[in-house]
């Protein structure tokens, strides 16, 4: 079995897996830092009075912010990361798979409600598709992960369907 076949088999096992997690509170500081990092000076992301005049209780997060955060936990120790910096456990690939490049292959996001600073966010993660395509340099395994970001009452803010490529 080739390495990419092993990855593809691993992805097939993941298909249909679903989990819910509490991510935490989206803070004013997190929003302001994210907006600074992307270079977007929209005052909705930094000026509370400006946001309030437009009907929000506080500043709001840039639409794609929550779907862009890779790790909501404390994180792993350096020895628990692969050479490329990705986690050995809890990531897309099993720890015994080496020599495979994993990268983002695109994302579809639906923005249902804006996220106001102070919102406590949960996520439901589900693996919804996997397939293999023949690329120029060999087979490529695809995995599609759906993340639904919501609050404790089930109010949905953002739904993201992210494609991950392994080759």
């Amino acid at each position, binding site marked *: 079995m080739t390495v990419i076949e092993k990855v593809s088999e691993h992805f097939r096992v993941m298909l249909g897996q679903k989990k819910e997690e509490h991510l935490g509170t989206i803070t004013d500081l997190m929003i302001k*830092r994210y907006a600074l990092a*992307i270079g977007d000076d929209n005052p909705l992301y930094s000026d509370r009075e400006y946001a309030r005049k437009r009907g929000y209780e506080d500043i709001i997060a840039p639409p794609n912010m929550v779907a*862009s*955060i890779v790790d909501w936990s404390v994180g792993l120790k350096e020895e628990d990361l692969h050479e490329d910096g*990705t986690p050995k456990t809890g990531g897309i690939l099993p720890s015994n798979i080496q020599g495979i490049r994993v990268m983002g292959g695109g*994302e*579809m*996001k*639906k923005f249902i409600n804006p996220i106001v600073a102070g919102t406590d966010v949960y996520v439901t993660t589900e693996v919804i598709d996997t397939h293999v395509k023949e690329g120029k340099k060999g087979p490529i395994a695809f995995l599609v992960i759906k993340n639904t970001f919501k609050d404790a009452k089930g109010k949905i803010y953002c739904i993201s369907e992210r494609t991950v490529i392994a080759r």
Partner: protein
Amino acid sequence: MSNTQPLQVVYSEVEIGEELPILKKNTSPLQLFRYSAITWNTHRIHFDKEYALKEGYPNILVHSHLHGAFLTQLCTDWMGDRGELKSLEVNIKRFAIPGETLTCKGTVVEKKMVDGEGLVTIDLKEINEQAEVCAPGRAVIKLPLV
């Protein structure tokens, strides 16, 4: 964008083929470091040049989500405070590195009324200095009717 009220785009005045004002972005290693930090992304390809060279790239790489953030801003700058970004699809076709100027462009390709809401579809492109498309995309934006 400034704190002054921007001109509001309205559905009734938008035309198919209309182009959004171009947004240019120049990324730096510091910006990529900050983006890795705020998204808690430990992938070395985005902050460790020595590692990126080992993987065969000429420098550290712009994050896929940062490409998406630029195309998001193109849309939100244009739609104004009364517009609503309903959806955004972004695909990464080519890597980008710090120092390159990335140009984000958008064209209105469809407008339709759905359940009383005025929706416009925007064809998006983020291109590098060699006119290669790094990230094509598509957005749907709800605009005030008048």
